[in-house]
């Protein structure tokens, strides 16, 4: 996933999920993840996935990009799935479905929550210095990717990745990466100096994560319902498995409704405008 695009979705969206507090979204994501981990019924895993896709649609985030992004860990899960294969496909498919669904949930979380708010939630759980490192890492990614992109354009314009054999191209590519490393260090020194001048002494002022209010109750209710569904199917599978198609059918109906009802695609429109600006300097 393109970090900059995800960041844009998170900051420019105005949907219900965007407006919900980061704490509530983190709790909801944790509940859904717990459900995905607990359940072994592939249809229930897919139910949670379809609901996540529907929520993505209602949040104005491009569904195709989230689906593609969440499919990426499926490639790694396929290795586990390959090792699990014993002649039937359902066990490996369940493993892949779990990986993809868990990824869709966290992607939805980060696509609707600006990173300072998300890190404010994490600040409650981890030592301060780790959260400071997270902040700096996230800020630096954008600078680095921009720098790396510029260096790669320069390398290509000078024919650095054409001819010269594989070894020569690897050497040029490495030089470009090394330049980025040096640039990264220069950036870190400069950033540190600026931060010190501005009074940094070991604590970046953090955004507030926000609490859980009445407006977050529908979100938490839905997440709790999905988690409960997963746990019930986990422990009462003999009784309930025959009906595991039913939640999936309901989820598909929800998805169809989410697709059918127009949505303000603020995030994607803003993203398109930004893409246009980048392409026409």
């Amino acid at each position, binding site marked *: 996933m393109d970090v900059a695009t995800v960041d844009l979705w998170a900051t420019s969206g105005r949907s219900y999920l965007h407006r919900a507090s980061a704490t509530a979204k983190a709790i909801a994501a944790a509940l859904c993840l717990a459900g995905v981990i607990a359940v072994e019924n592939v249809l229930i895993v897919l139910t949670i996935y379809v609901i996540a896709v529907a929520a993505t649609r209602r949040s104005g985030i491009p569904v195709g990009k989230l689906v593609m992004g969440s499919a990426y860990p499926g490639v790694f899960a396929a290795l586990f799935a390959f090792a699990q294969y014993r002649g039937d496909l*359902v066990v490996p498919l369940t493993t892949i479905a*779990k990986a993809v669904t868990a990824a869709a949930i*966290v992607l939805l979380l980060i696509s609707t929550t600006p990173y300072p708010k998300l890190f404010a939630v994490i600040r409650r759980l981890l030592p301060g210095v780790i959260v400071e*490192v997270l902040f700096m890492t996230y800020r630096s990614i954008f600078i680095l990717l921009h720098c790396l992109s510029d260096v790669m354009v320069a390398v290509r314009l000078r024919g650095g990745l054409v001819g010269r054999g594989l070894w020569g191209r690897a050497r040029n590519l490495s030089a470009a990466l090394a330049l*980025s490393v040096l640039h990264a260090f220069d950036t870190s020194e400069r950033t540190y100096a600026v931060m010190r001048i501005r009074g940094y002494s070991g604590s970046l002022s953090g955004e507030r994560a926000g609490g859980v209010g009445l407006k977050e109750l529908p979100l938490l209710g839905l997440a709790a319902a999905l988690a409960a569904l997963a746990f019930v199917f986990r422990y009462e599978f003999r009784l309930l498995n025959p009906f595991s198609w039913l939640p999936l059918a309901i989820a598909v109906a929800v998805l169809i409704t989410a697709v059918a009802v127009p949505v303000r695609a603020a995030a994607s429109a803003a993203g398109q405008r930004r893409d246009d600006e980048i392409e026409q300097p």
Partner: protein
Amino acid sequence: MSHLHIPDGVLPLWLVALGWVVAAVYVGLALIAVRKGERVQLVPRVGVVAALVLAAMSTEIVPIAYHLNLTVLAGIILGPAAGVLAAFAVNLILALFGHGGVTVIGLNTVVIGTEVVAGFLLFRGFSRLVGDRPGLAAGLATVLALALSTTLMIGIVGLSRIAPTHARDLGSLDPKTLTLANPFGHGLVANRIVTPEQGAPAGDGGVSLTRFAIAVYALGAIGWAIEATLTGFIVSFVARVRAELLRPGESGVSWT
């Protein structure tokens, strides 16, 4: 592809919890090792190197999920303590982007943290052996560090004895034919489509460790070669231009 991005829901909970405990010890030791007065100065530097690792990891070399790690480079530049902090930050952010499970951040930190620490130590060792050829030392350190972390990861999978999924749990899908059982076959309110025979566990459903290890070593070895080549060139370049970066203890920040 030195490490595998273990997805959520695959490993048993006890192993996931153990991973968090070990990762907490790693990070705790790293925080103790980095002297308090230096943490302020360290934060931007660790952040930038972690961002570099993330940028490398988010750039696929070929479209089958091969990507650079630059974790050994991070270890060489930051040293083991700050390197472990960077590894934790990288895993946390990767998990937020669905690139590895959230619950297994601990285990992934142990794997990548080991890679960072081993990379640093091996680089120091090989530098003494090969003399004034930092690129070669870095390349050799990368191959060995990645082989070590991959073996650790396979060991984790072996420890897990993954067998969480049985056909009986999988819903009304028939695992043999992948067809859905007719939910109305016994009436709309039927509650017994899973027969006693279907209800019995079908096979162990677990991972074949041998098959898994062969797949990971075979795919991983190609990645190690690519990573070692590029890391070697990068270190060689940095050694010519800014050699002090390769001696983290002498560049202003402790690496103890």
